[in-house]
């Protein structure tokens, strides 16, 4: 048995950390949050494409790196540590959908996605009100798609959309088809969600419901891994601040009440690491309880990250409430990831439904 990453994935992880520190540190995340029209760096995403990051999950025959869910989780944890903005997980999910679809349209788009030439995202959700997505009402009839999708990540920037319709997933691509998008600005300024009105040509892809569920589950796992990275780094900066900052003539780190809460932050972070990587490993191995373990990991990570990143602000005191210090960047991303890729409440329900011990 071995919990640590194997050499290939450890190299992937450490080189990802180096890459992010050099090219996309948190300082850049912060300036992108505020200034960039797109909310992320297309140049850096081009670099990611060149380095093969969008094909992490593809087999070597498909031109991928075959790093599996464990490799993806390692990469997303690192990306969470710098709160990397942009549609990375979304691109990986789109690649996974396209790879499962037949036909040249999908294959061609996949090639462009992998090469960084096209941004493709999945417009899966409908409905605005409420914690859970509404029912799918978008229809594809006679080659024309009509409907409204909500909270489409980076949908304004996308070159093509994969759209869940009542009849399956349809491909909608520019320049043949455009779409009207309206910004849906959530707490996390770096997430550029939009509402999209669809009324134009589209093509149905051959994708089974099982395939969609697999890719949704990958999204849940990816979100959980990102949450892990967010809390991992939040804990680090909090510990550093507590070691340095003094009150009543002693470092914050020496106050027992704060020590015990820091211990709780560590517990939340490390248990999340255990849960996320076990779920990733089980997914790669096709273990029968993989879906259960992913639900467990996402449910746990959402609650844990909210607590840890909330405590990070509190432990920083007044400066934790300023834009200048970093803790808020993490908490805001957490609030987004808690809601999407299966809300915490929905994942708890999924865990109960899938738990072996809950079977009648």
């Amino acid at each position: 048995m071995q919990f640590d990453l194997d050499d290939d994935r450890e190299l992937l992880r450490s080189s990802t950390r180096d890459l992010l520190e050099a090219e996309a540190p948190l300082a850049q995340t912060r300036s992108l949050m505020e200034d960039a029209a797109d909310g992320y760096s297309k140049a850096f995403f081009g670099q990611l494409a060149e380095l093969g990051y969008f094909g992490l999950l593809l087999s070597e025959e498909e031109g991928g790196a075959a790093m599996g869910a464990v490799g993806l989780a390692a990469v997303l944890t690192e990306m969470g540590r710098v709160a990397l903005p942009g549609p990375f997980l979304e691109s990986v999910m789109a690649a996974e959908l396209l790879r499962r679809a037949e036909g040249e349209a999908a294959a061609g788009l996949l090639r462009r996605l992998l090469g960084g030439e096209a941004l493709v995202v999945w417009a899966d959700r409908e409905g605005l009100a409420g914690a859970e997505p509404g029912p799918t009402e978008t229809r594809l009839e006679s080659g024309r798609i009509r409907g409204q999708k909500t909270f489409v990540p980076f949908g304004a920037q996308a070159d093509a959309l994969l759209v869940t319709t009542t009849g399956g997933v349809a491909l909608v691509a520019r320049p043949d088809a455009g779409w009207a998008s309206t910004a849906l600005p959530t707490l996390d300024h770096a997430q550029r969600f939009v509402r999209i009105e669809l009324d134009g040509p589209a093509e149905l892809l051959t994708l089974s419901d099982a395939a969609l569920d697999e890719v949704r589950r990958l999204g849940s796992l990816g979100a959980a891994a990102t949450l892990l990275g967010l809390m991992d780094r939040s804990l680090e900066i909090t510990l550093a601040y507590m070691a340095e900052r003094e009150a009543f003539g002693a470092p914050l780190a020496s106050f027992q009440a704060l020590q015990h809460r820091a211990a709780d932050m560590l517990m939340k972070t490390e248990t999340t690491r255990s849960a996320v990587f076990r779920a990733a490993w089980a997914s790669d191995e096709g273990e029968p309880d993989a879906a259960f373990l992913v639900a467990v990991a996402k449910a746990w990570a959402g609650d844990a990250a909210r607590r840890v990143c909330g405590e990070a602000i509190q432990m920083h005191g007044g400066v934790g409430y300023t834009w200048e210090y970093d803790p808020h960047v993490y908490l805001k991303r957490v609030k987004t990831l808690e809601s999407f890729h299966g809300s915490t409440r929905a994942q708890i329900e999924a865990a109960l439904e899938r738990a072996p011990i809950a079977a009648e």
Partner: protein
Amino acid sequence: MDLRFTDEQLQFQADVRAWITSNLDRPWSEHVADARHTPDSLVEVRRQWQKKLHEAGFLGMGWPEEWGGRGATEVEQALFEAEIHRADCPQVPNFLGIGLLGPALIHHGTEDQRRRFIPPMLSCDEIWCQGFSEPSSGSDLASLRTRAEPDGEDFRITGQKVWTTFGPWANWIFVLARTDLEDRYGGISFFLVPIDQAGVEMRPIRQITGESEFGEVFFDGALARREHLVGKPGEGWRIAMTVLGYERGAATLSNPAQYDGYLHDLIAGVRAQGDLERADVREKLGRLIVENEVMRSNGLRTLANLAAGQAPGPESSIEKILWSEFAQRQSDAALELLGPQAQLAPTSRDARGGVDWAYEYLWSRAGTIYSGSSEIQRNIIAKRVLGMPTR
């Protein structure tokens, strides 16, 4: 026991409610959701609202008549604040001036100071901010380092203050500064300092909400005139601590009144999205309602004790923790139950309207930090109420 308001008090409450109905053109949340507003124009809304309140005689109600007061009791002040919070009125820019500096001047200032400063403070012709906290003395306020050095009759102030609410719009700042570097408590004095002078630099601090309602202030030999020293040199700490304890009655009912409105909005939203019959949702809503009502019960107890002329009991020392931690749980629950739409900026076309829960979520992070963090509050309860020893 008697927790009933008198007929006069209920009449006063009705009068306040009627006055608000006639005078509040637009609830604050609608202003905030109006994309045409700028930060400055929002402050102007607040300033105009303060002027209206002042003209109606609702500011400094407990002060002597000479200074705008009307001999209002603790209960009337509490009822007034509750109505103001219930109706979603704008916050007055001079809330700290009126809450802290006013009592300081009335009890410890000179007649000249009162004449000069109280009228424009009430009318909002001058905006005041507070210079207590410093970058390296947050929870440990008495460790402040800003110095006031004699310069002839007057003083020159050097140092840095942070978290000056409304600082970016303020004309004056009331400052705690050291006139004696050795004496931890007895070396602190209380000054009134004009901001528009060389030697004072005000920089806005951007908050996690994106606003810049706070500022940090750099003093570099700023002039504080001798006649603007409140009390004697070295009395600053005592004055500050005394006024921090005043008017605690006024806030006893305001938080539950405000949260009533929030919870009403939350329940309406949950009902509208068809989730009100879900047992898990009902438990979460019910728990919030229970907790808010318990806070109101606790506030009524504090108020009743004050009204009966008694020293506030243990119930009063826990209020800050109660409301500030409740506010976090409440907005957390709202974001969960209402889903991502509740995160949308109120100026967004698809925002759900009503309470801006995303803003409340972020703002609630400040509540457990400012005015004595939850950690400091628990230290105080352990030491002062429970008499536990320091190690």
